């Protein structure tokens, strides 16, 4: 009887700890491992945001998106597709990417930047170079 009580108490404590860990110390999203919700060209994605920010924000913001186009600018941990999508990577780019490369990237859409007239994507990974 005593063992059962101790057993149950231990189980309750353990599950409490697990729930605490899961809720309060939950890991960040792993964008690369999440399924892609939208696949859309760099041109079209920027067009939708420039056309109607409110609707595009509701539809695309914080969503996992695959987009593609030619590289028009390269920085340390960022690059630009078609002068329209600014892409940020969590770390510096490992593979060599040069202006003119055709590229598909997967990342999280963070919204529209009207100073640069670009859509921003962060936590990106390159998925293929054509």
């Amino acid at each position, binding site marked *: 009887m005593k063992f059962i009580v101790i057993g149950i108490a231990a189980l309750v404590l353990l599950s409490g700890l697990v729930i605490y860990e899961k809720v*309060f*110390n939950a890991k960040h999203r792993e964008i690369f491992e999440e399924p892609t919700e939208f696949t859309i060209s760099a041109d079209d994605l920027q067009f939708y945001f*420039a056309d109607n920010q409110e609707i595009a924000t509701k539809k695309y*913001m*914080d969503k996992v998106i695959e987009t593609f186009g030619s590289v028009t600018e390269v920085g340390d941990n960022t690059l630009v597709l078609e002068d329209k999508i600014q892409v*940020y990577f969590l770390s510096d780019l490992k593979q060599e990417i040069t202006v003119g490369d055709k590229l598909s990237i997967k990342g999280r859409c963070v*919204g*529209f930047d009207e100073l640069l007239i670009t859509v921003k994507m*962060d936590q990106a990974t390159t998925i293929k170079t054509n």
Partner: protein
Amino acid sequence: MKSNKILFTATLMLISVYAFNLNAQNKYVDKAGYLKFEASEKLFEPVEAINKSVTAVLNADTGQFASLALVVGFRFKNSLMEEHFNENYIESETYPKAIFNGTLIDFDLSNLTNNPTEVMVDGKLELHGKEKEVKTLVSLQKLNGAIVMKGGFTVTPSDFDIEIPSIVKNKIAKEVIVSLNFNLKP
């Protein structure tokens, strides 16, 4: 549809050329600027977030300065805190941006050297559908052809009508310290 799109893009480009004076060669831009805010209280879990995808644009002829941060781009150490920040406090789906528009007072590009000098910035910060005047000193220096801007300022959640529920009130500081670091390239 296609011709509509071309027309639209052309109009947009035209507007942007006028609005931000893209013709001017003296525009300095950072497309991956750094912004951090902190509202930590002693003894409690740190409340801080960093955004490394901030845009900053300085017109070196006029001293006009603008900066834009997309609020979902703020990253917290604790992902639950990040979720609450976006959903309950800042309401990023309705108000996705923080925008600063202002002027560097008495800015003169030719005065900048390798040594940091302090310059006053005066402008308006728009966030959560509200506007607030921000006046602060920033340090400016010229490094390898770029203008490096560093500084910070303080705001309060109530400045922007952001309500902090009473159960977490003592865990979040009344004053939010914002720090910035921009590397503006010609």
